[in-house]
């Protein structure tokens, strides 16, 4: 079930009603059944795969906690291997076979290998990582094993975050499912506001921009460099609004029911460096990789070369996590390179900056840093969005060298971009720099009018038949 669907607008209020109307001891049942229904809306049979991994991880958690010495590690490894294997089979098997076939063809061995005709289970990468987080934290002693099977299953399957995160930690979420939640209007308002803004970002901005981006990126040969540049710029905001919009809706849904999920985005395009960007973008994933891959590899507490390897490797894996295509691999590698380059040149850049901009809080310097970071991430997004590697390089080539200035212009998308991106920019600018200013926003009448205005904009300008969120496919 998609958040931006009529079915969800019926489903969610019903679930909320049932949740608050039920006695506390049955509420986990309501949520679990609702989550099962939500998941089975896509491909029902796949719930068996999810059930299988839930059972294995549940028992692994108990066994890890109750065992000593080597066996603890064995149970952890079994759990991790199970989860990673499911992920690899569904997500990477065909990609692996395709590349083996290409390699064999290059070596003159013509073989036709068999592919799996399966669809990727929705949200596989997300709930797999969330499940792995549980067994690792139990192993580390940071989390007690959950004895209630239903609560553990709910931890993995909680429908607001089931298909695209945020990827939660057991310490943050598990205890909340045991707590008695009481309905209150504060949560209703807070959650509704988040959902409203999420829907605006998704259906007004992201889906409108995607019309242009898809038209251009799916026909790279027929478009000029300037059109590709505009499409790249639009995609930079499309992916942000799509993914952050989803996160807001997920967090808002959970909030209405009294659950607090972690913040997943924090105005990433205001970052002044790539390092800062990754502390603001998909925070749940980047902290997952930090805590479960980067730090175990040694983090930055190793030799310099090993440190650079760790950074680069983590981003390579992050790239592959996003999809089974070499474009994601290159995207990850590019981000890894940015970080390593930034560290290597830190001293020189600091010296240069302090020479040109002696004052520490120089607005112009900060502005340049923000723009530079934005441009670097936008460049990397080319590889994320391109259909294949050759398209990606063709796009780069055309952007930098095409001398034809015929712009493919879709006026509807253009107006949508102006409207949506202006509102987005103003909201985020205020949150970033002027949170306590503009006190008229605290006026009740103004706030209510703004909410009504957003609803009106969503109904009037939203794209309702576009389908899935981008990160849905992961």
């Amino acid at each position, binding site marked *: 079930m998609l958040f931006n669907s*009529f079915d969800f607008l019926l489903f969610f209020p019903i679930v909320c009603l049932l949740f608050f109307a039920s006695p506390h001891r049955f509420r986990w049942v309501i949520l679990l059944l609702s989550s099962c229904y939500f998941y089975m809306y896509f491909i029902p049979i796949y719930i068996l795969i999810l059930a299988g991994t839930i059972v294995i991880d549940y028992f692994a958690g108990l066994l890890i906690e109750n065992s000593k010495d080597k066996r603890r590690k064995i149970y952890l490894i079994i759990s991790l291997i199970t989860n990673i294997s499911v992920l690899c089979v569904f997500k990477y098997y065909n990609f692996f076979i395709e590349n083996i076939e290409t390699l064999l063809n290059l070596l003159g061995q013509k073989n036709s290998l068999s592919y799996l005709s399966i669809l990727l289970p929705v949200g596989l990468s997300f709930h797999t990582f969330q499940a792995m987080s549980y067994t690792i934290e139990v192993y580390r002693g940071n989390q007690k094993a959950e004895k209630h099977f239903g609560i553990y299953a709910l931890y993995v399957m909680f429908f607001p975050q089931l298909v695209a995160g945020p990827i939660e930690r057991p310490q943050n979420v598990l205890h909340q499912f045991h707590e008695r939640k009481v309905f209150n209007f504060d949560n209703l308002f807070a959650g509704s506001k988040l959902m409203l803004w999420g829907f605006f970002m998704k259906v007004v901005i992201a889906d409108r921009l995607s019309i242009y981006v898809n038209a251009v990126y799916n026909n790279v040969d027929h478009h000029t460099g300037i059109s590709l540049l505009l499409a790249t710029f639009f995609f930079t905001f499309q992916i942000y609004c799509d993914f952050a919009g989803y996160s807001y809706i997920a967090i808002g849904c959970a909030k209405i029911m009294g659950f607090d999920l972690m913040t997943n985005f924090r105005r990433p395009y205001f970052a002044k460096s790539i390092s800062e960007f990754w502390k603001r973008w998909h925070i749940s994933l980047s902290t997952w990789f930090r805590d479960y891959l980067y730090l175990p590899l040694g983090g930055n507490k190793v030799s310099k070369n090993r440190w650079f390897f760790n950074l680069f490797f983590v981003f390579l894996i992050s790239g592959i996590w996003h999809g089974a295509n070499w474009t994601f691999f290159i995207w990850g590698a590019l981000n890894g390179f940015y970080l390593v380059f930034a560290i290597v040149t830190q001293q020189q850049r600091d010296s240069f900056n302090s020479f040109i901009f002696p004052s520490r809080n120089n607005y112009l310097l900060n502005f340049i840093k923000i723009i530079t970071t934005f441009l670097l991430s936008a460049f990397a997004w080319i590889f994320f969005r391109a259909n294949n590697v050759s398209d990606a390089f063709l796009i780069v080539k055309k952007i930098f060298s095409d001398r034809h200035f015929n712009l493919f212009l879709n006026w509807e998308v253009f*107006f*949508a971009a102006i409207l949506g991106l202006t509102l987005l920019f103003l909201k985020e600018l205020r949150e970033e720099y002027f949170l306590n200013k503009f006190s008229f926003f605290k006026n009740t009448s103004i706030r209510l009018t703004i909410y*009504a205005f957003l*609803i*009106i904009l969503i*109904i009037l300008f939203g794209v*309702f*038949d576009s389908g899935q969120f981008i990160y849905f496919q992961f």
Partner: protein
Amino acid sequence: MTNTIKYIVKIAIVLIIVVFVDFLSGVIFEKVYQKSPSGICYQENYIMNKTNQDLLIFGSSRAAYHYIPKIMKDSTGLSVYNCGREGSGIYYHYGVLLATLKRYKPKVILLDIDYRDFYQHEGIFGLDILEEHNPFYHKISKEFDSLLVLKGFKEEIKLQSNLYRYNSKAFKMITSHFAGGRGNVDGFRSKNGTWKNSISRLKTDKLILDKNKIETIRKFICKTKENNIILILTISPYFANTPKNLYKTLQDLASEKKIAYVSHLQDSTFKNNPKLFNDVLHLNLKGATIFSNKVASEVKNYLKDDFRNRK
């Protein structure tokens, strides 16, 4: 309790504002839409509310770019308008027919059929195109309204909102008033490119007949018969090799209903000449001129003398 009342009042205020704006938008947008001076909104409005020509051409972009009204008029002596519209399918054309019949009865209708009009196909040749008719909900007839809610009861609920009815139109109305629109001559628009590639096969593997679309074509035929309108089903050329029986279902239907059927699918004039095409699916102006002349003389043959005398 006071807190609860306070929150309920806030929710009520937001809903009242939304409902009020929704109501107002119905009045304002209708006027803005109808007064669109150019572009797609002007053309839609004209096609649904203002046509009065003797001969109307229905179809997708292939109709819009293939049939030159002036040539048809010079040959047949009838006033002609090209109602072809990009990205539209049979559901859309049937809606246009219902809207037209509410106002008058044209003497002849040419319906250019694309293969996607009777095979399963997602997107614009499916039910999605019906959203273009949303501004006319509750304004034409009950049958028209029931066409619009073919997607299901959820669509019927959504269409109660004026804002939603103009959802697909909002930006188009802005562009119509401020950015101008493409030109057309009696609905005809021309493409001026030249196709440079060699002929290829039209991808028609795994095509499945769509019963609902075929049923809509039947309804279209019956409606024209009820209203004494001469209907001619036409197939304009593709620059592609197509299976010989691609249109068999349509041909059989035309034969069953005793409807004129004119096909240029295998016409060698076009198949051997990429210079007459802008792309695989559309003729360019030169191609459209040749095609229009051919169809015009064929149409003439179906029109009886007494019919022309009635005019």
